[in-house]
């Protein structure tokens, strides 16, 4: 027994594990100091922590909706739709014009929720259109090509879209108008402050996720999607129009990305053509963390990532005396991405078989 174990563990494993253990120790030290070592444990109150968690959940809701696009497409085509971050960008970047027009005309104060829904609908429609065009023009002809080819195409499409939208709408920053009805916060149990926008974002994201889950699990077309993801040829033999299902998958991913875009804009109202890259990468991280190809996995992964990202700088980095830890918040997400891919590419809820596919 011992010998086989020793044979299986290579130098690479040792190296990787030692890095992992080192980072783990750093995290534990940071965590310990944040709660038990004097100068640090007094820095933040429990309300701050609760605040950060809610903020993280709101962020996670956005990531979850973007991650849906990655996870659905990966489930069916086994490809990373690198341009999905631009599908996400296109919606809110277009809808900002409608939002500003509505705000100027005064509708934002009169019917805030109707306006929000209109803006979200436009954003979803634009993102869906971009996703469908992307599939039709860039991915469909390459469905049988070697694996790197569609990925490179996706990278190219991503840049093309970023700079097309920059060219169309200009390189300036555009701000979403604030919604007066969502300013301020609700107080829970007399002590607990919840920002209205965050509550709305979380609620909206959860509802969207439930609808998507219902579509994939309970409807006929969802069943067809799952069939195509299992085996394309067999599904085609059963009379499923594979092309149509793939287009539908992209459309679904686009719709959820468009919705995510509006929710993102509620939290960070400045939009521009480059806004997609970082949230896109983080959503991909979330999809991988939860187990790519799985819808509940994407939700779980996104929530974990959102909370970690929101808590991380204060919880782990600040107690280690790292100045201005918020700067490294994106680094936390990327580090999680790198490590989850190295240690457990199948993610938390991923199928066993993924490991071999990766």
């Amino acid at each position, binding site marked *: 027994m011992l010998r086989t174990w020793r044979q299986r563990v*290579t130098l*690479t494993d040792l*190296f*990787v594990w030692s*890095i992992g253990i080192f980072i783990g120790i750093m995290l534990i030290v940071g965590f310990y100091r944040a709660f038990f070592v004097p100068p640090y444990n007094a820095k933040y109150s429990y309300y701050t922590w609760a605040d950060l968690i809610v903020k993280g959940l709101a962020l996670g809701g956005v990531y979850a909706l973007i991650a849906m696009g990655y996870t659905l497409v990966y489930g069916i085509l086994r*490809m*990373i739709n690198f341009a999905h971050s631009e599908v996400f960008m296109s919606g809110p970047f277009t809808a900002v*014009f409608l939002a500003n027009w509505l705000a100027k005309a005064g509708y934002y104060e009169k019917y805030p929720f109707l306006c929000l829904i209109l803006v979200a609908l436009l954003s979803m429609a634009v993102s869906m259109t971009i996703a469908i065009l992307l599939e039709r*023009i*860039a991915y469909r*002809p*390459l*469905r*049988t*090509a*070697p*694996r*790197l*080819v*569609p*990925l*490179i*195409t996706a*990278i*190219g*499409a*991503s*840049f*093309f*879209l*970023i*700079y*097309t939208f920059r*060219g*169309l*709408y*200009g390189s300036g920053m555009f701000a979403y108008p604030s919604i007066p009805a969502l300013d301020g916060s609700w107080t829970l149990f007399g002590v607990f402050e919840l920002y209205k926008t965050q509550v709305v974002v979380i609620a909206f994201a959860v509802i969207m996720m439930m609808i998507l889950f219902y579509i994939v699990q309970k409807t006929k077309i969802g069943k067809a999607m799952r069939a195509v993801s299992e085996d394309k040829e067999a599904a085609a033999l059963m009379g499923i129009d594979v092309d149509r299902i793939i287009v539908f998958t992209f459309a679904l991913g686009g719709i959820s990305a468009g919705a995510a875009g509006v929710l993102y804009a509620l939290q960070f109202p400045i939009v521009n053509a480059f806004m997609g*890259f970082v949230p896109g*990468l983080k959503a*991909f*991280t979330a999809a991988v963390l939860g187990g790519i190809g799985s819808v509940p996995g994407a939700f779980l992964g996104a929530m974990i990532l959102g909370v970690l990202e929101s808590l991380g700088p204060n919880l782990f980095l600040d107690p280690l005396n*790292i*100045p*201005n*830890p918020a*700067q*490294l918040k*994106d*680094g936390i997400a*990327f*580090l999680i*991405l*790198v490590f989850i*891919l*190295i240690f457990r*590419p199948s993610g938390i809820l991923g199928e066993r078989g993924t490991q071999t596919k*990766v």
Partner: protein
Amino acid sequence: MQTKPSDWKISLQFGAIGGAVSILLSLVGMVVAFDQRYIIANGLTFGQITLFAPVVLTSYLAIKKIGSPLKGRTISWGAAAGAIGGTLLAILVALGNLINLRAMFINATPELYNIITLGVPLPMGLIVPIVSCTILGVAMAGLYLLSPRWRSTILQASAWVFLFGLLRDLIMTVLARWGAFSSIISWMFALNGMTILGAFLLFAFVGFFAYRNYGRKSNDSWVNKLPPRQQKAVRWGTIFAIVIVALLLPRILGIFFSEILDNVGIYILMGLGLNIVVGFAGLLDLGYVAFYAIGAYSIAVLTSPEIGFAHLTFWQALPIALIMAVLAGVILGLPVLRLRGDYLAIVTLGFGEIIRLLALSDWLRPFLGGTQGIQQIAQPQIGNFVFNTQESLYYLILLFIAIAGFVAWRLKDSHVGRSWMALREDEDVAQAMGINTVLTKLLAFGTGAFFSGLAGTLFAAKLGSSYPSSFNFFVSINVLSLIIVGGMGSIPGVFVGALVLIGAPEVLREFSDFRFLFYGAVLVTMMLFRPEGLWPEARRKLELHDEAPPETEPQTAVITPGV
């Protein structure tokens, strides 16, 4: 199989696609930006070509797809496709005059409408794009009906006229340095673009040779017919000539172009490295900029008095910087070895971003300078000679390119190189054949990182400073694009790719705004229509064309011959 779409549907569809692309190019701002550059003096502008090219191209493709032998039909389908495209443009102009499109589309300016209507005022102006596109569609039908020999002649001659007009500034700047020669050719050019006479004569000149040489064998086969010894002589002669030209280039082109050459050179160096990782070993590395940054920052930290860490000279710091880059390559390489394909790409991308975030952070500010970067980096110096001008740096970069190119060329057919290629083809089989995949992949990562680090040190020396903003994801994409355009795995391809993608946008200044738009489009179209690149590596070409399954062939076959 589906039923064949009817002819009118094809013509309509293609015309509409062409019109849509034209509108997109207009709204993105290309047409207006390019309108400043005249191809033919006071006549045809680059903007107009950009505007009408999609319609022209799609109507030609439509005619080709319909492939009707009848003259009248071909002409009418061409006219129809052109007319549809033109109508879409006219609709854009009409819409723009009815409502304020500018509130959303920043480039929907009166200037743009003026270009589309060719300056004709409005009610009549709406007809102009329709008529001109229809005429162009008919012209494409005419081109299609010509014999292949005439078609190729006209295309070649037009391409040369276009190129000369486009590169007028470059040609004139070069000629200005050679007073005596300039009069020979300068009459061809006006202050903006070519003169009509010049364009006409160039067209006739190129056309004559193109017509005469049509169907003749190219130079290569001429060389191949010679006996082996002479073949070798010709080959060495070519290499010698290239070396001479490369050495004289900054002298010929002047200071402004020397800087461009330096940039191109640095990218060639990186391209040679990434070509090993992506092209030879098939490991898609999207965080390649990380090693470039590590090279640049190592030189900066070790030589700059600002950090006060060490006061080495450039040459003392260079080996340390290179070792750092290689170490980073191996450290990244080790854990990601077991990942394949797309996951590897994402992990390396994450790694590149982490390096950039660290360089930006306040945490490492005492060492890396944070957002302000590091200034006063030592310049390379031999004896009393300091490489501080663009021209002298060019020679230094050229020397390193020569070394890197030689190393890459020798590695390619070596034992290691063949292992890399085996790995690229099929990892499991390669392992079964006894290739140590761990070591082989590490070697690829290490070599790639080495070249990238070298490029980084030269970049730092050239700028004299090092900022985190120079090391973003776009650099990785630049390098990736250039090796894909040139041809993955092909060493001459790296040079071609760098000249086209890095050199051309610098020469055509108005183009640089659309550089990444263009890169994106190039990556997509290359992957769709020519995945082996402009200067393909022989084996790669076979591989990509062998793997294409028969069912996708009809689709690609329609479009490739026309390109």
